[in-house]
C-alpha cells in the first residue's frame, strides 16, 4: 500500500473551507484577525499565492493522486517539497477525522507520506537524493566532517561518564556552536554532570522530511544504541527532541528540551537568573517545540525570570505562530523561499517594537539571521540558551 493511501481518510476529510489559506488566527487570541503584512497562517501560500501551495490545495492534489487524475511529474514533485510541514494549517483546521473539536487534518503527515512514495518510486528530485546521500556519508546534512562533530566542545569541561547526555544535534554542532556552548554552560553551572557523544549521528529528521524513512530508521537505531547507557537526554534542538519523542519507539531514557529542563531547575531553585539582560525581545515559537510538542509556557516562564528583560508577544503567536521558513527541508531546497518567509516573519516581530527575537531552535536562529542579513533590518536574533547563560553568569 502506498504511504499516501494510509492517509486517505485525512485527505477526504477536507471540505475546502479555506481557513488554512486565508485565516490567520481565531478570535480567541486577541482582537486582531489579520496582522499587517500577512494574509493567512501558511507562510508558503503567503509568498506563492496559488492554491496548490496551501494545505487545501495540497490535499486536493493528494486526492488527485489517489484517484489517479494526477501523477508525480517533476513539477508536481518539486511542489510537494515546498511544504514547511510546520503544522500551522492543522491548528486552524476545524476538521478532524478522529476527534471532533480537537486539532485538524494532519496535512504535514500527508505531505510526508507523498514524499515517501516519491522516494520509493525513484522520482525524488536530484538535489533531494544528493542530500540524503550526503547525510548517509557524513552523518549530518551540512557535508561537514563527522570527525568535527564535537569540535565545538573541546574547550569545555565535559565528562565522559554521566547519567545525562546532551544530544547536541547537527545544527548546534556545526552551524550554531554558540547554542551548543551556551547549553553546556547552563548544564555545568547548574551542577549537572553530562556527556556529549562523539558517536552521535543526525537525529534522522532531515531524512524523514525528504521521504527517506527507511534510511532515517538506521540513524534512529544507531542513536538509541549509542544513548542507551544514559538515564536522561537533554536537547537544545526542538527538531531532534521531537524526532526522539515521536519516531523513536520505547525510549530507554527520559528526554527533555533545554527549556523544560531549565524551567524545572528555576522552579526548584537550582538555577538563579541573577544578571540583568536589558533588552526588549519578542519570542518566536519554534514549530517543532510549540505545535510539535506543546511547549509554549516553559520558554516564556524562563524569559519572565530574567531581570530587566522585557518580553512582548508578536502576532500571531503560540500555536498560530508563523514558521520561520526553515522547516520541512525547504531551507535546503528552496533557500530564496525560506529567506522570503523569514523576512516576513521579521516584519511581524518589528510590529512589536522589540529590538530582538528570541527563539529556542538553532534552525530558526539561522534562518532569521540569514533574513536579517538579506533585508538589513536592524534586529538581533538570540537563542534562549544564550540569554539564560548570560543571566546565570555562566
Amino acid at each position: 500500500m502506498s504511504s499516501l493511501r494510509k492517509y486517505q481518510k485525512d485527505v477526504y476529510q477536507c471540505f475546502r473551507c479555506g481557513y488554512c489559506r486565508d485565516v490567520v488566527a481565531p478570535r480567541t487570541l486577541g482582537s486582531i484577525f489579520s496582522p499587517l503584512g500577512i494574509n493567512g497562517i501558511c507562510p508558503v501560500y503567503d509568498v506563492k499565492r496559488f492554491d496548490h501551495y496551501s494545505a487545501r490545495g495540497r490535499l486536493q492534489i493528494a486526492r488527485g493522486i489517489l484517484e489517479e487524475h494526477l501523477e508525480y511529474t517533476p513539477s508536481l514533485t518539486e511542489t510537494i517539497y515546498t511544504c514547511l510541514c510546520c503544522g500551522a494549517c492543522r491548528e486552524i483546521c476545524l476538521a478532524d477525522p478522529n476527534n471532533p473539536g480537537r486539532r485538524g487534518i494532519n496535512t504535514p503527515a500527508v505531505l510526508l507520506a507523498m514524499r515517501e512514495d516519491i522516494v520509493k518510486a525513484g522520482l525524488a528530485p536530484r538535489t533531494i537524493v544528493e542530500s540524503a546521500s550526503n547525510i548517509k556519508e557524513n552523518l549530518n546534512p551540512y557535508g561537514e566532517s563527522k570527525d568535527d562533530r564535537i569540535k565545538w566542545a573541546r574547550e569545555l569541561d565535559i565528562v565522559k561518564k554521566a547519567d545525562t547526555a546532551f544530544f547536541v544535534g547537527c545544527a548546534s554542532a556545526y552551524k550554531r556552536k554558540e547554542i551548543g556552548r551556551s547549553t553546556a554552560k547552563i548544564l555545568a553551572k547548574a551542577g549537572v554532570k553530562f556527556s556529549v557523544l562523539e558517536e552521535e549521528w543526525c537525529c534522522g529528521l532531515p531524512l524523514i522530511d525528504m521521504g527517506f524513512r527507511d534510511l532515517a530508521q538506521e540513524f534512529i537505531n544507531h542513536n538509541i544504541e549509542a544513548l542507551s547507557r544514559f538515564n536522561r537526554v537533554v536537547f537544545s534542538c526542538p527538531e531532534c527532541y521531537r524526532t526522539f519523542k515521536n519516531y523513536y519507539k520505547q525510549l530507554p531514557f527520559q528526554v527533555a528540551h533545554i527549556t523544560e529542563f531549565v524551567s524545572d531547575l528555576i522552579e526548584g531553585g537550582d538555577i538563579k537568573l541573577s544578571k540583568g539582560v536589558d533588552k526588549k525581545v519578542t519570542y518566536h515559537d519554534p514549530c517543532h517545540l510549540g505545535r510539535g510538542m506543546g511547549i509554549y509556557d516553559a520558554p516564556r516562564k524562563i524569559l519572565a525570570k530574567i531581570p530587566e528583560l522585557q518580553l512582548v508577544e508578536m502576532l500571531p503567536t503560540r500555536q498560530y505562530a508563523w514558521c520561520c521558513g526553515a522547516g520541512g527541508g525547504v531551507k535546503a531546497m528552496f533557500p530564496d523561499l525560506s529567506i522570503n518567509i523569514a523576512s516576513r516573519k521579521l516584519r511581524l516581530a518589528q510590529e512589536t517594537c522589540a529590538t530582538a527575537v528570541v527563539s529556542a531552535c538553532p534552525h530558526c536562529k539561522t534562518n532569521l539571521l540569514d533574513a536579517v542579513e538579506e533585508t538589513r533590518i536592524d534586529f538581533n536574533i538570540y537563542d534562549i540558551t544564550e540569554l539564560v547563560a548570560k543571566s546565570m553568569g555562566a
Partner: protein
Amino acid sequence: MSRPHPLYTELAGIVGSEHVTDEDFACWATVGDISLEMPPESALVQPPTIVVRPQNVEQVSRILKLAQRTRTPVTVAGAKSGAGGANTPTQGGILLDMLDMDKVMEIDEDSMAVLAQAGCTWSKLRTALEKKGYRTGILGPHGCLSATLGGGVAYGIFGIDSAKYGMIGEQVASLEVVLPNGDTIRTGSRCNRNTKWLFRYINGPDATGIFIGSQGVFGIITEVALKIYPIPQYVEFCSYWFDSYEAGFVAMYKIQQTGYISDGIIALGRNTVQIMAHEAPEKALSVIAFTIESNDERIAKAQKDVCEGIALKENGKDLGPEVAKRAAYDKIGKMYRIEMSWGASTAWLGAIPTNEMIMHLEERIKEDIKPYEGMLIKSPRRPDLPAYTYSGIPMGQTIINDSIILVFDGANPLLRRKFYDADKEWFERSCNRGRGLYWIGMRCTSAIVNSYSPQYREFLRNVKRAVDPNMILNPGVLEL
C-alpha cells in the same frame, strides 16, 4: 502539462509570469468548493486549463478582452468555499482567481460604507473595520472567514446576523463590475463619474441588483461597497429548549418577527440538539438560540424581555446564555463547521417562510433522511444516532434558511456518488416545494432554472446575450 497553454504568454504579459500557471496539478488544486460538485462524481465540471491571478481591475479587463477575442471560457473564483459548485469551470478554460485583489480601499464615514476589492476576505474586512469601531451588517457567511466579498455578492448569500440585516444584497451600496467585453462600470452613486460617496438607490435604474446572485454570468465583480454600522456595545445571548418541534418553531417565528434579534438558530431533533445544546435535557426536541444587540443597554434588555416572554409562553425553558454564545462564537459560525468536521457532508439548504417550515416538519424530516440512514456515520457524541443535523437560521424577519446536513464517509467513492445523485434529487424536490435557493452554481443550476417561468428564463438569456454574446463568462451556470 505537456506543452504551454496557448494563452500563457499573453496572460503572463498581462499579469506577470508569477501570477499565472498552467500546470495540471495547479489547476486541479483549485477544483471544488465545499459541495460534492467535482470530478469524478460530477460530469458537469472540469478543472481549468490555466489559472490567472489578476492584481487590479485593468488586468481583469484585459484578460476578458483576450478571452473574447479567442473565445476562451472564463470562470471566476474567490475563496472557493461556497456550496454551490460555482467556481469550478464547466468547460475548462481560464480560472480567474481573485484573491490577490484583496484591499480594503476606503472606510467612508460620511456614507457609512466600506469599499473593498472583491477578493477581500471577510476576516480581513472585519479586522480593518473593527479597528475603527465599525462592522458590516452581515458579517460573512456562516463558518467561512476565508470567504470573499465578491463571492458573497455573486452568490447572494445570507450570513451571520442576517436575521437583522437581511441578505447581502440589502447591504450593498455600490459595485464595480468588469463586463464580459472588458468594459468597467460602477453602479449606484458611483455611476456618476464625479461621485466618490457610496449609496445604492440613486442615479437611475438599480443596476447593482442584476449582479447580485448572478454567479458571475453577467460580469466580474471587482469592488464591493457595503453599508457599515457602529459595533453594538451590548449583546444579550439567549437560548431556550422545548419538548416539541412545533413549540420551538412557533417561538422562533414570533421572535424573528419582532425584528429584535441579530442572529438566531433553531436546532431540530435530538441529533442537532445534542450538538448545539448538550446541556438540554433528553426530552428537548428543539432548541432556539439568538442574540440581541444594541448600543443602549436598556433597549437590549427590553428587547430580550420581549423575546423571552414569547419563548416562555410556548413553554420554553431557559438554557442560559452559553448555548447562544457557543453557536455565535464570536461570529465565525464555528458550530456549523463542527458539524461538518466529522466526515464528508452534503448540505441541503433552501429558503422558505418560517411559518411554512413547521408544516409537516416531522414527516418531512423522516422522508428526507430515511433513504440515507444506513449510510450516515454515527454521531461521535451520540453513537446510537446517525450523524445529521437539521436546523433553521433566520434570513430576515419572515424567511428562514432550512438546513439539513448529512455526514458520511467521504473516502468511500460509492457513497460520494450516491450522495451526489441525492443532492440533485433533493434540489429538484426542494424547488418543487417552492423553496428559494441561493447557492446557484452547477450544483443546483438545473433545479432552479427548471422552476423559472419561460418568460423569466428568456429575460435572463436576453440579458446574457446582450452583455456576453460569445457566452465566455461562467458558461453553463444558470443554463444561459
